[in-house]
């Protein structure tokens, strides 16, 4: 009892030491000016872990760290203290104060329901447990004591209850624990001390089991898994393996019961399915994770399928002091199998090597003589009446197109060039074009999405004759081109072909017949136009 306060200091120290880097649950780095808060936080973590352990042993599972649906991690301590500050769960619910709690936590309001649920599942029960553990006080006082800076009483009680152990265990265990801490800090250090001999623990009850657990914990720490934030989640950066939340304070504390440690580690082996950021056992059918085994009660552990275990590797970059973790998956499910090189290239059959479309095989002579002409740019001058006018540009585009078609022949169609160019609009009626343009102007993303994805459902009857490919072709070859034409001439400093909804005018009266107007002559069909697009 006498060393209750030193106990506390040791715990806080060790805890912070262990978790000082990037821990989510204890969010901020240790702030020496806010010692009380730190103490409270560390106490919270300690008690919560004990609570977890006890509940898990009853078969009632709680997973930490807690994650919200969009992948953000939730600081349980912060949540707990905020709600307490506002008067408790019931008061907050009654008075509708959840909004402010959410805002204070720095979260989006749409996670309100999740946060409430989490509080209910995790912390309400925890409160109850806390008050039960402290028979001297009723429920509220327990929390008060917890939130107080007068921590010694509580922690002494806990220590009296839980930490009693014979001396021999204490010594060998502390050695084991020191080793584990070293491993945790430097998991990949080749100079790491080897695992203490299990025989040293033989004298202690279940010592061998304990060393098995230590080995498993080391495996867990070594294994890394690539973390995958869900799209849109910008705050999810740090992922902590649940093992990190198992209270190392208790482990390092002299005389910790070994049974308790092994159960903790068993919790650590259970992992979160990081591929979908949800916890297994919710029926989500992730292929990566077999259903986790029930946490052992006696400390005997069978190894479950363990290919996907979210491990953590701490790494600190030299140049910016942001601390972060990186996780890479391992296992046959993630890495490729690189077969040995046999000296023989596989698949030399031509159909597996791509079909040659150019140069056309029987026309070698033509190809070789023209290699020098490759890489010519746009001619500076042309003989058009008004250089650079809409008609001039159209003429030259058509001219080049003709040349290419003559040169490539069949390859022109193979490359899909028959489906490109503004001439695509010739296959659309004016009405269809207008409807398309109106639709694009609608700046309602969901409608646009529905349009592109669902048009097979005949939502837009006027496009009945058009396939999706036609629509996409028209969009890129006519609609956007027109938009860019307009921008090039009217807003040359502000060009963007990605913003669909912008209003734009047009130059010329579209393509085809109406494009060329002559006031005094009968309209003459432009032979260029018909030649280019008569390949249907």
């Amino acid at each position: 009892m006498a060393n209750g306060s030193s106990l506390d200091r040791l715990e806080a120290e060790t805890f912070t030491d262990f978790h000082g880097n990037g821990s989510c649950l204890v969010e901020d780095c240790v702030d020496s000016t806010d010692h009380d808060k730190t103490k409270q936080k560390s106490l919270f973590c300690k008690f919560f872990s004990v609570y977890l352990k006890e509940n898990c042993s009853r078969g009632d599972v709680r997973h930490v760290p807690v994650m919200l649906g969009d992948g953000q991690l939730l600081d349980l301590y912060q949540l707990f203290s905020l709600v307490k500050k506002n008067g408790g769960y019931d008061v907050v619910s009654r008075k509708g104060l959840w909004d402010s709690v959410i805002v204070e936590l720095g979260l989006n309001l749409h996670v309100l329901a999740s946060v409430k649920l989490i509080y209910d599942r995790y912390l309400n029960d925890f409160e109850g447990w806390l008050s039960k553990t402290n028979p001297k006080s009723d429920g509220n006082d327990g929390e008060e004591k917890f939130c107080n800076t007068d921590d010694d009483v509580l922690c002494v009680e806990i220590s009296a209850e839980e930490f009693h152990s014979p001396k021999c265990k204490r010594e060998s265990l502390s050695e084991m624990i020191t080793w584990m801490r070293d491993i945790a800090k430097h998991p990949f250090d080749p100079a790491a001390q080897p695992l203490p001999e299990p025989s040293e623990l033989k004298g202690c009850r279940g010592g061998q089991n304990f060393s098995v657990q230590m080995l498993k914990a080391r495996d867990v720490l070594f294994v890394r898994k690539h973390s995958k934030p869900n799209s849109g989640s910008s705050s999810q950066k740090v992922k902590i393996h649940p093992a990190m939340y198992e209270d190392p304070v208790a482990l390092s504390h002299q005389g910790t019961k070994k049974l308790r440690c092994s159960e903790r580690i068993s919790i650590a082996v259970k992992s979160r399915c990081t591929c979908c950021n949800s916890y297994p056992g919710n029926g989500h059918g992730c292929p990566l994770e077999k259903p986790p085994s029930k946490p052992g009660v006696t400390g005997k552990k069978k190894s479950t399928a363990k290919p996907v275990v979210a491990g953590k590797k701490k790494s600190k970059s030299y140049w910016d002091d942001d601390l972060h973790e990186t996780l890479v998956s391992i296992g046959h499910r993630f890495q490729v199998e690189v077969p040995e090189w046999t000296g023989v290239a596989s698949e030399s059959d031509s159909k597996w090597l791509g079909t040659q479309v150019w140069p056309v095989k029987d026309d070698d002579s033509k190809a070789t003589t023209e290699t020098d002409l490759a890489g010519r740019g746009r001619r500076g001058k042309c003989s058009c009446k008004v250089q650079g006018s809409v008609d001039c540009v159209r003429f030259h585009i058509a001219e080049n197109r003709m040349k290419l078609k003559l040169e490539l022949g069949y390859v022109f169609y193979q490359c899909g060039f028959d489906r490109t160019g503004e001439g695509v609009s010739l296959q659309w009626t004016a009405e269809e074009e207008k409807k398309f343009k109106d639709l694009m102007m609608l700046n309602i993303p969901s409608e646009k999405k529905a349009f592109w994805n669902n048009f097979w459902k005949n939502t837009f009857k006027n496009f009945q004759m058009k396939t999706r490919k036609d629509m996409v072709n028209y969009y890129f070859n006519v609609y956007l081109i027109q938009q860019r034409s307009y921008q090039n001439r009217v807003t040359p400093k502000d060009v963007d072909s990605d913003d669909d909804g912008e209003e734009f005018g047009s130059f010329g009266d579209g393509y085809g017949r109406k494009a060329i107007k002559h006031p005094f002559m009968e309209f003459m069909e432009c032979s260029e136009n018909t030649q280019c697009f008569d390949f249907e």
Partner: protein
Amino acid sequence: MRSKDRIAYFYDGDAGSVYFGPNHPMKPHRLCMTHHLVLSYDLHKKMEIYRPHKAYPVELAQFHSSDYVEFLHRITPDTQHLFTDELSKYNLGEDCPVFDNLFEFCQIYAGGTIDAARRLNNQLCDIAINWAGGLHHAKKYVHHGDGVEEAFYFTDRVMTVSFHKYGDMFFPGTGDAKEIGEREGKFYAINVPLKDGIDDSSFTRLFKTIISKVVETYQPGAIVLQCGADSLAGDRLGCFNLSIDGHAECVRFVKRFNVPLLVTGGGGYTKENVARCWAVETGVLLDTELPNEIPENDYIKYFGPDFSLKIPNGHIENLNSKSYLSTIKMQVLENLRSIQHAPSVQMQEVPPDFYIPDLNEDLQNPDERIDQHTQDKHIQRDDEYYEGDNDNDHQTDL
């Protein structure tokens, strides 16, 4: 330079009609635009064009899990609401949307790279190009993250080298310099994390130093060069400040090693710049410098108002200080020292940093191939941003 490199260029006309959906930054139509530019500049006169076969599901399943492939094959926009669990499992949905002919698109770009690799393996060409390829985030089971690096993280048969933006929770969040591979693959993965705004001179200098050291040390039998164009200035999602010349300079540099080379595309979300960049780089691979004035073609209007191959400078601050870059460089070079030299390599004098001598053609026998023992070694380079909407400026809002 060898007297005449054989270049095989892979293109499938169906790629241009792939559409991810409104407001999605990835636009396969950029491939069609690139192809138009390449042909407008008559570059087809100097190379062979191939239409690749569309990769069969079983080929895709050589790496990816078969149920993932199957799912991609069967899912359509109309039915996706019935498979919300699977969508989240495979990380499809918003960032990686389900759209019509999604699977066909996968088959196109994968088939292109597969055919290109085979052609190189069979020594039918010296350089193979597949601008549709280079999409490197899909992992075995999900589409997300640094898939290719992870795939080869534990092996020394493939060395991966990646130059990318890192930090500020930029997608995908991995790529710290400390990620160097594990077990047998330790030191066979190189990550070069960079900050916003890196410019041509800083980048090319760093790139050349590191890549020359890698090639010297690892002696690859083949190189896969992923030319993600989101490192260009003005990219919709990216935040570097490279010009097209700077970007192409790196391609030119790798070509000079005269190692069988597979060039792929990658990211790049301002499609005009992507088309410019890859057309210029096709020219570089063909030893042809393209004049800036873009010849008239169907898509010339996209390149207005200047209709030139040049892109404007980004005018953003380069947050990569000299000391920072120097630190990274030292770290990478030190890691490379840990790799044993390949047994067949002659010890050569190592040139001082920043001085890259031209390769002496007379010493190289153009008919001799790298010996089979090292044939299967690859290095791969990335210098791009990753798809995703974790960019600060552009929140895709579907």
